[in-house]
């Protein structure tokens, strides 16, 4: 189950990026259709990997990207839930343009109790 290794790599990565002493509430990843990642399996592995660690209880949000197909005949590019799809122009062999994404996109952490205003300001700057 490759979801387990990916969950492990992700947990290490999140801990590396997390500001010290701030609880991580949510972790957001982006997953291309080619990766063949099972959301349920991934969720289970995330819970198992983070159990009794600093990340315990954090929510994993998975943005499962659809296929992006490009038509070699008419040039149309569109998103499709399935890989093998016919273009509206009748072409039967549209090709995928991507799909191997597997990125940590963001994490959401508790604000620092000590200086809430400073933290909020920093967060806004970071998010823009």
């Amino acid at each position, binding site marked *: 189950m*490759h979801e387990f290794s990916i969950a492990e790599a992700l947990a290490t990565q999140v801990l590396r990026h997390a500001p010290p002493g701030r609880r991580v509430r949510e972790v957001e990843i982006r997953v291309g259709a*080619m990766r063949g990642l099972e959301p349920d399996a991934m969720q289970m592995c995330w819970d198992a990997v983070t159990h009794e660690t600093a990340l315990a209880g954090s929510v994993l949000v998975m943005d499962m990207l659809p296929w992006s197909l490009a038509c070699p005949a008419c040039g149309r590019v569109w998103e499709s839930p399935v*890989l093998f799809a016919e273009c509206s122009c009748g072409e039967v062999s549209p090709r995928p343009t991507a799909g191997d994404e597997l990125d940590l*996109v*963001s994490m*959401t952490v508790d604000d620092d109790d000590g200086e809430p205003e400073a933290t909020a300001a920093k967060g806004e700057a970071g998010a823009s």
Partner: protein
Amino acid sequence: MSEQVKTTRIPIVERVLEANDQLAETVRSELARRGIFAIDLIGAPGSGKTALLEATLRQLKGRRRPAVLVGDLATRRDGDRLARWCDRVVQISTGDGCHLEAGQVRDALTQLDLDGVDILFIENVGNLICPVGFDLGQAVKVGLFSLTEGDDKAAKHPYLVTAANLVLLNKIDLAPYVSFDRSGFEADVRLLNANVPILSVSATTGEGLDRWLDWLDRGVSGAQGARAT
């Protein structure tokens, strides 16, 4: 849950397997420095990865200096089969891991005398999906399919087909006995990877191996030429 707790969203955007990818790059540059052509062989369990390597090593005897890393869940059987044809074989026991990672390759390479080696085969764990995402520092990925798996396996494993530098279709000696739509299979491969070469082989009878060996020779020449410059 956290009505009172204020939170901050921190945008990051970094590949999840970044750490593996960095290790793979160090392996890749070490292999490139030595002029070693490295092949990550990926295919389903039973597709004939070990059999193909046995046949290939037999052919390379006296012509090349190969080394082999072989990932296996629990046994040493594949490693023992390959050691009959090559004196530089390292077995990587992956336990319940369903793929090899760059760190395992780096560690295994330290157990090998790489002096004079010009070609490195890495037999990945039998799995068509997850090994594709883990860069090992290889020069090329070879996707191995076989006639007995059914002609829909390229379509069902787009990640491997897209990433492959070569698609091998093994067990063609069984063509008279199994129904396998070769042109349909090739059309699926082409859709995903328009220019990838597709070679039909039989590890058992040796049919088609000459073109596979030619392809390997070109890879070795490329790796050695790149080192020379």
